[in-house]
């Protein structure tokens, strides 16, 4: 087990995230279990994902939304690992699939930076040439981490 969820979803935090994204202002991030690399900005919903749109995808059902966030966070390390090993092995087919999966999940959350980064790598991988894809891969990892952190705040995951 990677962590656990406190249910129900902390609506207040989701609300805050939504407000932050609407106002475009970053709110103070709570301390993280994993220290962020220095080049990563403090997480906030703004620009990373669109909470209101994402919640609308499940017709505002917060319980289902929390489950989906949980599923995504559980799935993410495996996906990133797969992407990393595929790029390292120069396996374009596998890299394209992993990037495609990541793009799909990211699009659910309207996480534009991650969606775009994954789309770029997917397109590159489809050409069959992965040389120079490592930068794109790192970009994906950064964006994925930002999204994960932002979702973690909303989810109210215990540290």
């Amino acid at each position: 087990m990677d962590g656990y969820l406190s249910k129900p979803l902390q609506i207040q935090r989701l609300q805050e995230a939504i407000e932050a994204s609407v106002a475009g202002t970053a709110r103070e991030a709570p301390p993280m279990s994993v220290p962020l690399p220095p080049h990563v900005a403090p997480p906030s919903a703004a620009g990373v994902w669109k909470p209101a749109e994402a919640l609308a995808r499940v017709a505002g059902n917060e319980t289902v939304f929390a489950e989906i966030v949980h599923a995504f966070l559980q799935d993410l390390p495996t996906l990133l690992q797969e992407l990393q090993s595929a790029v390292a092995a120069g396996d374009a087919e596998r890299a394209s699939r992993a990037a495609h999966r990541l793009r799909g999940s990211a699009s659910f959350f309207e996480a534009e930076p991650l969606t775009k980064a994954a789309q770029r790598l997917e397109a590159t991988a489809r050409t069959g040439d992965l040389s120079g894809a490592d930068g794109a891969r790192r970009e994906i990892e950064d964006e994925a981490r930002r999204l994960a952190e932002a979702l973690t705040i909303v989810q109210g995951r215990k540290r």
Partner: protein
Amino acid sequence: MKILAADDDPVWLRMIEAMIREWGDEVVTARDGSEAWQALTGPNRPSLAILDWVMPGMDGLEVCRRLRDDTESPYIYVLLLTARDSKADLIRAFDAGADDYIRKPFDPDELRARLRAAGRIMDLQAALLMAQGELRQQATHDALTGLLNRGAISEIFERELARAKREEMSVGVLLADVDHFKSVNDTHGHDTGDEVLRQVARRLQGAVRTYDLVGRYGGEELMVVLPRCDDESAFRIAERARAAVASTPCGSDPAVPVTISMGIATSRALGTFDANALVRGADAALYRAKNGGRNRCELATR
């Protein structure tokens, strides 16, 4: 409506599952193409499949193609999920047999609208299948007795003969005729005559083996096709049927004592797999049964 949702992405899979459940439909999920294929070919199949295009192993397009290759089973409506939107991709999807597609990311409203459209098509198909079934029943069955009609029983007889010839087995045919049926009609009226025919049909059906086939061959003449049957068994079955009719009067108001006469022919005894020859043989035997006093069975001989 039972719906299958197949996606290797747990995010979208959960979303689709939760929404469909909220809308009151039954939903099963699959995490890849083979799981989807199993659900679509197993017992209690869904009538609609939401398939993600890109899945490990068998992808959505392949599942769709396989579904369309199977023309025997009831139609399954396929809604393809895709992140692609090039014209060529869409044409590929429809060529594979998809009925509709939905692009990720999508909203529940769009999904619901597409499922409603699918529901309309599936309702139409269900109505069509039912009408087809009724027509088939009407085309092959006799309205009065519910037995196979002359065309259907003749066709089955031909088919059984062809099979028996291939497998070197014997087929039997019985022709049964209600004795003095005209006088039943004349004395008691046609309603009673009809009731007598229905009862004779039911008793004949009850007396033969489960895989024997009974049809109405003419006015008061019934035919039984007896697959895998030699003279001895055919005679035994015919005697059982004759006794079943003669044992109790037919109808209740009034109860009419009724008997039947039967002619029996088997391919083994007559040395032919020709339907006409066998029917002629059974008919001649029936004639002898009538002349011999009625309420009896006669075997055709070479």
